[in-house]
């Protein structure tokens, strides 16, 4: 099957405007602006079963339908913060197939009646922002952005905004704060961004990959899209495969593909031909999946991954072979979350701090059993108490490593086996 999102792999120059146009580019945007009502566009996306690709999996069309029509103006914000360890799909889209993403932004903006859209890129994506700025300028020059598009009354501008190194800004309300020129700290909800978003106005925030699906859904229809994937997870997904595999990279696959196919067929098998020990299904924010035959043969869709006590999330699959001790792995993930905790809420700020100190003690072999128990208790006490998902994410790997791989927290092993 030809790629739908990573189309540059089939059409190498699709990042050029004339090539994109020759391959049906901006037909969908033109169609919605000149011949559809905004509500109809939302209905098609709703019917397609498209779910948010940033991790939460919320139905995209439903999200769009929450925008009220008695408060104006409206905004669309593309979340290109992509900071989850193990996730690197959105940058490939923006680097190689940028117009399809930008067309998705434009269609979303039309559907919710927004005349301005912002693309929030993590600061490290300096080069990607420069690429997008150039592409946006080309669109302005050729009448695809600007005033009175295609002879209608609809106007649209798209802007890029660079963050500056803060994982928390991938959380949508922290992201909005950051665009507003503030520290990226999450807002208390409700009110939700659909009502009180950017500058206090109704705002739709969608992930880059989510938006990149939209032009094809408009062009080919909701039924076509739903014919791919599984009942609860329509369409295709980009799986970012990393860790102990021979061929790490992005793989665009229908939902429902198994872990075994991803790791062994796409990824060319495990480093040093060792067995897979654990899988992190959603980057550093994952629960650990025990990689037995049942897990390897589990289809990767929202519902099936849940049966393994984990989440599909952003589909960032980190493979860990048996050369590594999970105590070492959670040491890394805890350091990450400790560094990235924004400091606003106490359970996350203090919890991550203490988890870091406890895992360091374990690493040094200090009273391993007691400190493991205490670490587990701290993680459990953080759960369901944090203001935003970051604090929860920080605990997932910790509790599941201790529950599912108790042997890795034996005094004789701790501090020994490293990557």
């Amino acid at each position: 099957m030809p790629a739908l999102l990573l189309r540059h792999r089939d059409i190498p120059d699709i990042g050029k405007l004339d090539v994109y146009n020759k391959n049906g580019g901006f037909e969908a945007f033109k169609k919605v602006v000149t011949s559809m009502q905004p509500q109809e566009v939302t209905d098609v996306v709703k019917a397609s079963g498209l779910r948010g690709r940033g991790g939460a999996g919320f139905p995209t069309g439903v999200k769009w339908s929450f925008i009220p029509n008695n408060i104006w103006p409206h905004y669309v914000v593309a979340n290109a913060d992509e900071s989850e360890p193990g996730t690197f799909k959105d940058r490939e889209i923006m680097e190689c197939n940028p117009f399809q993403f930008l067309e998705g932004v434009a269609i979303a903006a039309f559907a919710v009646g927004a005349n301005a859209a912002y693309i929030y890129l993590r600061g490290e994506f300096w080069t990607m922002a420069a690429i997008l700025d150039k592409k946006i300028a080309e669109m302005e020059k050729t009448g695809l952005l600007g005033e009175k598009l295609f002879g209608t009354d609809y106007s649209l501008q798209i802007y890029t905004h660079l963050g500056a190194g803060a994982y928390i800004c991938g959380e949508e309300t922290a992201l909005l704060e950051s665009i507003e020129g503030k520290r990226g700290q999450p807002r208390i909800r409700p009110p939700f961004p659909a009502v009180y978003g950017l500058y206090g106005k109704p705002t739709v925030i969608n992930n880059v990959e989510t938006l990149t699906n939209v032009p094809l859904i408009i062009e080919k229809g909701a039924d076509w899209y739903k014919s791919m994937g599984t009942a609860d997870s329509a369409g295709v997904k980009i799986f970012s495969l990393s860790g102990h595999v021979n061929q790490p990279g992005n793989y665009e696959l229908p939902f429902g593909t198994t872990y075994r196919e991803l790791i062994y067929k796409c990824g060319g098998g495990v480093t040093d031909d060792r067995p897979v020990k654990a899988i992190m299904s959603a980057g550093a924010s994952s629960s650990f999946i025990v990689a037995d035959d049942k897990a390897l043969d589990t289809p990767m869709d929202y519902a099936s991954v849940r049966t393994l006590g984990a989440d599909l999330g952003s589909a960032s699959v980190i493979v860990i072979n048996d050369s590594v001790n999970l105590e070492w792995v959670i040491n890394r993930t805890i350091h990450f979350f400790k560094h990235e905790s924004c400091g606003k809420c106490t359970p996350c700020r203090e919890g991550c701090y203490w988890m870091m100190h406890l895992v360091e003690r374990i690493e040094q072999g200090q009273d391993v059993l007691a400190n493991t128990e205490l670490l587990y208790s701290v993680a459990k006490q953080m759960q369901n108490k944090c203001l935003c998902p970051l604090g929860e994410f920080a605990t997932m790997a910790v509790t599941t490593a201790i529950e599912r791989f108790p042997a890795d927290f034996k005094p004789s092993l701790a501090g020994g086996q490293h990557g």
Partner: protein
Amino acid sequence: MSLADKYPQEVKKIMAKYPPEQKRSAVMPLLYLAQRDKGFVTKAALEDIARMLDMTTTDVAGIVGFYTLYHDQQAGKYRMQVCTDLPCALRGADKFLEELCGNLGVKVGATTPDGMITVEAVMCLAGCDKAPMFQVQSGEGIAYHENMTMDKTMELVAALRKSGKEVK
């Protein structure tokens, strides 16, 4: 000299991105602009930006402190920021960083005696499939270097040292 005097075109372009009544939104792009000269934000630049956006200097400093890509201290002309997060670590990032430090004769966080290179360990850069990888941050911006070997890295270091001296 204020940013608006020194970079009038850039400042105008930045301000035009946001609604006129929301000019505080320009603080992040303006801080990048302020870092262009020396690779860090000076106290004078903080005050300048605060005046431009009707913010307090403390508020602007709070933004610098919160986000890792803004710096309030001088470091090397080029910051080599090596990702040592989990996916990169599973592919040998720790060893790579150690070797790099050894070759440059500095510890993580320190700057080479010629003032050109600061080595830093950083969190995930979304280059997990191309480890070992790092980014080079300078006043001019950020560039990724992926699928790196030590030989390729040391060639880059030599090139950076050369161009760093030229533009001094």
